[in-house]
Structures are given as structure tokens and as C-alpha cells.
């Protein structure tokens, strides 16, 4: 696993040009070239031990060995350092929760009895979150903000199985949402059974009834407006939100854990023609061939190896490796709130230690989440036409000692400062007493 760890020196002028979007005096967009890089493209070429990347208008223009570099290009010599696509933080609450323990800053869930499936986090993403720069400087350029199902609603109703809809957003700019309604989030298993009033027998039956209602509603909108439809189990908003799910256009991300439940969910998805994502799925490794055959991706928590409930008795650190070996597409979940870990990349490193091939670990942090949440047309790999969301690393991206030397989003170099570094420097520079009492 030893990799060439050549330090990268960014020319100040290049960094400045990047920060300004590399607009030349004549108004033409200049080319930025990253040369002499160890590129992981994440597509067919996959690994270029010595490659160049051309960037124009915030997009990748070309990638390959020995590209012709335009004369006026801003050139960054990576000196052999590894370059990957920006990491995609799968399934987090970044941007929608600022301080978990401060309720007013938490937009990840609703306790309202008016909304379930229609709850939509796209409206909550806060581009000014102080957490975003901290996570961005670990090499994350994009994140999937995912709602959670509250276990206790103020006025529980049995139709409240859905946590709401995810959004993919980029960690730069004031209007960062890349894809709203990227997935509908549904909790099954113990949590879902609880929401359904208790009992898995209730949650599956209720769910099928809801899907029937949504289909009926979609076909009978006019009658609904005239109050000539049967009474549906869902609100108007929730019915609307679920149409794209029952039509298989929006993935349904199902939080589910034990093997028996995973099988039930696969069966349900097949019968209802749903496009699903399995989340959590601690016992998925026991059904790896079935999941692979169904073409269903899995978003998993690498750390989940404990029998933390009676539905995760088979949890294993080898879940990722075994699913990958069976051909299942996996994404590695990030720390939900980034408060117990600041990046998804060490989970990937540990998965490698437990048998996941190195390349597969990078895939699980980049192109797989892009595909799972429907943004692979412009994110997740280094290929012409895609957004220039790139990271240059000073070592192996999965190692504890490594940090990015450049994080680029849509062709612009991002600041690698954040509030925690300001605190660090204040107290480092001040020594024993940074507030000498204003003498």
C-alpha cells in the first residue's frame, strides 16, 4: 500500500488564478492544467501513474498521459502526487444540522404530523455552515444531505414511515444544491415498525397500501380535486412526493438491517417496480448474491460490527469487502454529523484493512455515490465534461497522515482554512494567555 508521497508545492500565482476562476484579461476562460499527477479517474482508465488534467470553464476538458498544454494555461505541477475526484460524503446531515444539541439549528427531521414523504431537505441546506469548511478541507467536495425519521413524533400517525427526501449539494457557493429529491428515505425494521404502530407485519402492509394509494391518486387527480376519490392514507403533499418513487424515477433509500428484512424489501421492490437503495444493511453480506442479482446498491457504515440491536446480530467489518466481491455497488457512509469523525476516507481505509480492494474503496467514496444518488453525469469521476471537483493529496488519500494540498470545486481552488484552524492558531500564537486582560 505504499504510494509515492511527493509533496506538492502550489505556486501562489496559480492558486490565486484558480481562486479567481482563471479568467484572462480578455475575458476568455483560461485553461488550468494539473500535470505530472498520479490520477485516479474512476472510469475505464482508472489509474494513470503519470497523467495530466485540463480544466476549462469549471469542467474537466481532458485527462490523460502527456496532454498538450495550452501555452497560456495556469499549470499546477502535482509532482507525482495522487489526484482523485472530490470525495462525496454519502448520507450525512452536513449542511442541515449545525449543532446537533441545539434544536433550532437542526433541520434534519420534522416532528410535524402534516408531512412525511414530502419533507424535503433541499430547503434547509445552509451554505454558510461553519462545519462545511472543516469537512471540505478533508477532501470532501459534495455531500448527500439525508433526513432522519424521528422516533417520537408529537402526534404520531401510522402513515409517517418516510423520513423525507435527500439532496445532493456541493461544498461551495451560496446556492449549492446539485440535485434535490435525490432519494426518498424510508426506515424499515425496528424503527419503521415502531413508526407503523409496532410490528413488521404492520409496516409492510401499510407500505403496500400507501403505494396503491399513490398510484390511484396519480391516475385520478381530477377526481381527487372534486373529492371523488376514496380516502387516502397519505396527505396530498405526501401523495405528490411519492409519485416519482412508485414510478421508479426517484430511488427509495430503505434503512434496513437484518437479513430477513432485506429479503422482504428486495421482494417488495421487485413487486412494486421500485428503484431502491439499501442503507445500513449490516447483514447484507449474508445475501450478497441476491442483492447483486437484483442490481441494488448498498450504503453502509464501515464501523458497524456490533450486535447493537437484535436486527444487527450478524454485523461484520467485512460487510463492504464481501458485498463488493459479489459485485454489489457500495457507498461508504460518512459520519452522519461529522461530529465523531470529519471525513469518510478513514472508513474506506479501514474497509481496505478488512479486505476491500484499494480501488474499490476509492470507488465507494466517489463514482458509486454519484451513481447511487443520480449525479454521475457531472460528478464522481475525472472525465471530460464533468465538474472539475478534484483533490490533490500529499499522500495516500485513505491514510491518517494525509491531507489535501488542493481542493477544487468547479475549477476553483477552495480555501483550506476553517474555524478550528483559527482557534488553533489563536492559542498557538498567544501562548499561555491570549487575553492578557487588556492592560
Amino acid at each position: 500500500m505504499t504510494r509515492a508521497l511527493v509533496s506538492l508545492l502550489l505556486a501562489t500565482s496559480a492558486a490565486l488564478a484558480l481562486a479567481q476562476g482563471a479568467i484572462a484579461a480578455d475575458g476568455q476562460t483560461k485553461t488550468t492544467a494539473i500535470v505530472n499527477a498520479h490520477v485516479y479517474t474512476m472510469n475505464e482508465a482508472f489509474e494513470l501513474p503519470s497523467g495530466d488534467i485540463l480544466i476549462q470553464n469549471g469542467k474537466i476538458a481532458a485527462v490523460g498521459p502527456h496532454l498538450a498544454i495550452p501555452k497560456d494555461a495556469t499549470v499546477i505541477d502535482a509532482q507525482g502526487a495522487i489526484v482523485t475526484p472530490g470525495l462525496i460524503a454519502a448520507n450525512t446531515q452536513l449542511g442541515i444540522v449545525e449543532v446537533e444539541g441545539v434544536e433550532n439549528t437542526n433541520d434534519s427531521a420534522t416532528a410535524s404530523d402534516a408531512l412525511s414523504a414530502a419533507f424535503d431537505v433541499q430547503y434547509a441546506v445552509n451554505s454558510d455552515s461553519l462545519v462545511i469548511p472543516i469537512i471540505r478541507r478533508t477532501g470532501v467536495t459534495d455531500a448527500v444531505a439525508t433526513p432522519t425519521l424521528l422516533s417520537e413524533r408529537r402526534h404520531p400517525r401510522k402513515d409517517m414511515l418516510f423520513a423525507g427526501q435527500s439532496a445532493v449539494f456541493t461544498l461551495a457557493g451560496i446556492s449549492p444544491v446539485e440535485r434535490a429529491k435525490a432519494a426518498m428515505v424510508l426506515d424499515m425494521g425496528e424503527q419503521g415498525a415502531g413508526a407503523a404502530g409496532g410490528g413488521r407485519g404492520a409496516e409492510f402492509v401499510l407500505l403496500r397500501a400507501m403505494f396503491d394509494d399513490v398510484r390511484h391518486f396519480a391516475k385520478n387527480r381530477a377526481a381527487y380535486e372534486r373529492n371523488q376519490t376514496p380516502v387516502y392514507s397519505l396527505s396530498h403533499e405526501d401523495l405528490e412526493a411519492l409519485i416519482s418513487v412508485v414510478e421508479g424515477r426517484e430511488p427509495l433509500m430503505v434503512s434496513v438491517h437484518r437479513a430477513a428484512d432485506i429479503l422482504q424489501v428486495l421482494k417488495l421492490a421487485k413487486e412494486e417496480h421500485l428503484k431502491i437503495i439499501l442503507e445500513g444493511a449490516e447483514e447484507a453480506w449474508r445475501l450478497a448474491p441476491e442483492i447483486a442479482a437484483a442490481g441494488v446498491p448498498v450504503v453502509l457504515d464501515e464501523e458497524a460490527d456490533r450486535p447493537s440491536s437484535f436486527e444487527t446480530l450478524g454485523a461484520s467489518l467485512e460487510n463492504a469487502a464481501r458485498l463488493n466481491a459479489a459485485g454489489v455497488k457500495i457507498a461508504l457512509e460518512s459520519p452522519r454529523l461529522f461530529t465523531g469523525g470529519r471525513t469518510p476516507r478513514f472508513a474506506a481505509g479501514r474497509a481496505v484493512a478488512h479486505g476491500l480492494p484499494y480501488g474499490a474503496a476509492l470507488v465507494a467514496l466517489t463514482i458509486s455515490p454519484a451513481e447511487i444518488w443520480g449525479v454521475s453525469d457531472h460528478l464522481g469521476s475525472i472525465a471530460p465534461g464533468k465538474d472539475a471537483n478534484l483533490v490533490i493529496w500529499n499522500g495516500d488519500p485513505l491514510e491518517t497522515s494525509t491531507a489535501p494540498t488542493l481542493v477544487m470545486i468547479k475549477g476553483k481552488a477552495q480555501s483550506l482554512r476553517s474555524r478550528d484552524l483559527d482557534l488553533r492558531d489563536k492559542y498557538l500564537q498567544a501562548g499561555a494567555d491570549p487575553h492578557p486582560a487588556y492592560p
Partner: protein
Amino acid sequence: MLARRLICLCAGVALLLLAGCETAGGPAKVEATPIAAAKPAKALPPGLDPFANPDPFPSTYRPLPSKPMAIINAHILTAAGPEITDGVVLMANGKITAVGVGLAVPEGAVVIDAKGEWVTPGLIDPHSHLGVYASPEVEAQSDGNEATDPNTAQVWAEHSVWPQDPQFTRALAGGVTTLEILPGSANLFGGRSVVLKNVLATTVQGMKFPGAPYDLKMACGENPKRVYGSRGRSPSTLMGNVAGYRAGWINARDYLRRWDDYHDKIAKGEKAEPPKRDLQLDTLAGVLKGEIRIQNHCYRADEMAQMIDISHEFGFHIAAFHHASESYKIAALLAKEGICSVTWTQWFGFKMESIDGIEENVAMLDHAGACATLSSDDADLIQHLNQEAGLAMAAGNRAGLKVDRPEAIKWITLNPAKALGIDAKTGSLEPGKMADVVVWTRDPFSVYALADKVYIDGALAYDLKDPKLHPKTDFELGLPSQGALQ
């Protein structure tokens, strides 16, 4: 597994069994001050004299059988000196006997060739809730917080520990050989904690670290005032917290005075009525007598400084601040007071009092000469504390603090042993110490490192490559097989 326990903070207490202090069976004070004329003092009925038996739940831990052993060709971090390349660790009778280069392997010793591997002391987690918040995380096994009163100094975490918690064996696979189990942080005074050897046993007594001091868990900040304030009780504010601590210490001083008066009178042959024993005050009095150490959950620098003032007011010492997100702001004060910080590298921002947590905390403390340690407070993080140290080392180096591996390894070995008062027995690879040793597949600070072999008191307790040495708790028997990756 979406929801992590947000705020389970710990507390704990370990009884310092000071050498020459009481032995089971008799009031030591009387023995220590013989008065010729006095009649022999009649012992109080069993259980009524708090000082008669300071160890009513004695450790029954016995090391697993071991043979003399030599780990050779190893890259060694001793936590007590420079890095040793191509060195030898010798162990016999459960103890380290020698560490160095080119040592002769004693005849009959089992030789472990650690070529390409690294050796460190066993990891010590000074802040854990394994056993008291066990897996499965069901209500029936949520035994970490006696959240019924702001002062529950009378409870002992060991009475909540479930020895069959499958989290213990997972921590073992992460190289953890010793851990302190604390009560939660709902209360100002949470109760006593217990130091355990990470071995399977049917009883908690079978896990108890022989001779480890007890600690008292205290908690600053948001948790106590939230828990009790929300019930319309004091404390509901930080100032309420402080009033609560001081009231507790006043009672403890008074209790100690009453017992001292009683013992003085008895020693002089006078008649005296003994105070009624009070378990809560026993623990607080133990702190004032210097026998029980304080492990204090406290995030903010300003609150830590106030706790230090309280310790001066009543005359006790705080062993460590836990979580201690802002310790770096008062590193010099902590160094001067000799107080350890038990913190994390990456955790921050989950509540207001943790928003100033930075990755450089331990490196900055270390740089200022203060005792710095990492801990998990978490059943997942405890499985890779070595990486948490690697991340802290990297952050320190990026800040220009020049942290090397021999220093960083102390954050998860010797320094937590100091925080717990067991550093004379374990925490570094030095002759005479317990042979608590981990052989790592590679540089332990790497994300790819796994514990290959874990020795506890010289006995092989875990072996990565030998499924027979992947111990299973009773709870795990019959669970869906995890098999081996082919």
C-alpha cells in the same frame, strides 16, 4: 445505525488502595494510634464502618496461563523511550522482563517473529461505557446513568457492568487491554468508575484490574443542568452546578470530621456514638482523603478553571478532565496543576460546549507539558484508538509541533495509565510492568494497521489469524456465523 448516543459522558471512581491503609477486618486508625490505657476498641458491626473494608468487591482476576516469550525482529514503541527498530521484547510470569536490541532469548521461551510488525504497550481507554451501555443497546441494558439525582456518588459503575457485552471483545481486537468504565454524565457526582482488564470473565470481579484506584466521576456543563433543569430541579444553570458541587463537598468534609471525632474519642477510650455510614459520603470522603481520584467530564476551559478553584477550596486533586475539548486554551494551567486531559482528536461540535474542539488538542497539551490522553467514549471508536492517535499526530505536525511516534503512542498507553493512577503497573514496555502488549501488522498509526496479537499479563488473549483466539461472549454464541473472507 444513524443515531449515535449523543451525550453519554462518563463518570467513575476508583478507590485508591493506598499502601498501608486499611486492611479488611479492622479500623486502621485505631491501630495507627495505639493508646496504652484505652480498652481495645470494639469493632462496629459488619458494614457500618466505612473505613473497615475499602474493597468490598475485590478483584478475582487471574491472568491467563502464559509461557516465557520473546518477541523478536520487532519495531518497538515502548512509550518510555525512543523508537527501537529490530528489537526484542522479553516476557515471563506475566511481566515484561527486558526490552532492547540484540537481547538473548532465554532458553525455553516461545519465540514470536514479528518481522515487519510493530509492537506497542496494550492500549488503555480511560473513558469507556462498555458493559454499562452494552450491545444490544436495549433498554434493559442501559445501565450507565443513575439519572435520579444530581448527586449519586453512592453508585458504582461495576455494579452495572454486563461482563457478556460483546463490545469488550471488539475492543480487544483493537488492541485495548485496559479500560476504565465510568458512569454517565447526567449528574454532578455520577458515581464510582472501575478499571478493568479486557478479558472475558463471568463476573465483573473477574475483570477488575488488581489494585487499581477507584475514581469518582463528576460532570460539568450542559448535561446535569439539562437533565435536572428539565425536571424543574436544581441544577438548571451552570451556577446551579457549582452550588451543587460545593454543597456535596461541604457534606463530605462534615462527614469526615464526624468520623474523625468518633475515632479520636474511641482511641482515647471515651464513649462515642458512631455516625451512620453513608455510601454517597463514603465516596466523597475517599476523595478528600486522597484515596479516590476525580475524573471530571468538562468541555469548556472556563468551567475547568472553576473546578480547579473548587478543588483548592475543599482540598482535593482532580486527576483528569474528560472530553476537555477546550483544554488547549488553558494548557499551561493544566500542566501546573498536574491534571490530565482525556479527549478526542476528531469529535467536536455535537453540542454547544464542544464546538471549539480541535484536532490539535492533545498535541498542543503535550507541547505545553500537560498530560494528554485520548479516549473513545464510544464502542466503535474504541476499536481504532490507534488511528485517533495517528490523526492527532498528523494534526500536531501540520501545526508545526513536531510530534513523533514515541510521543504520540503515550496518548493511548502511558498517559491514560497516569490519568488512572496505574502507570506503575502498566502503560509502557518496561521491565517489571504487566506484559500488556500489542503486536501490530504495521505502523500502528496507519489506517491499515490491525492488531495481530494482543497479550494481557503475558498471555495471548487475541490472535488475528487464529479464530480460536477470537474470544466470544456468551451472548454471541449461536449468532449468525460471520465466517471468514475467502
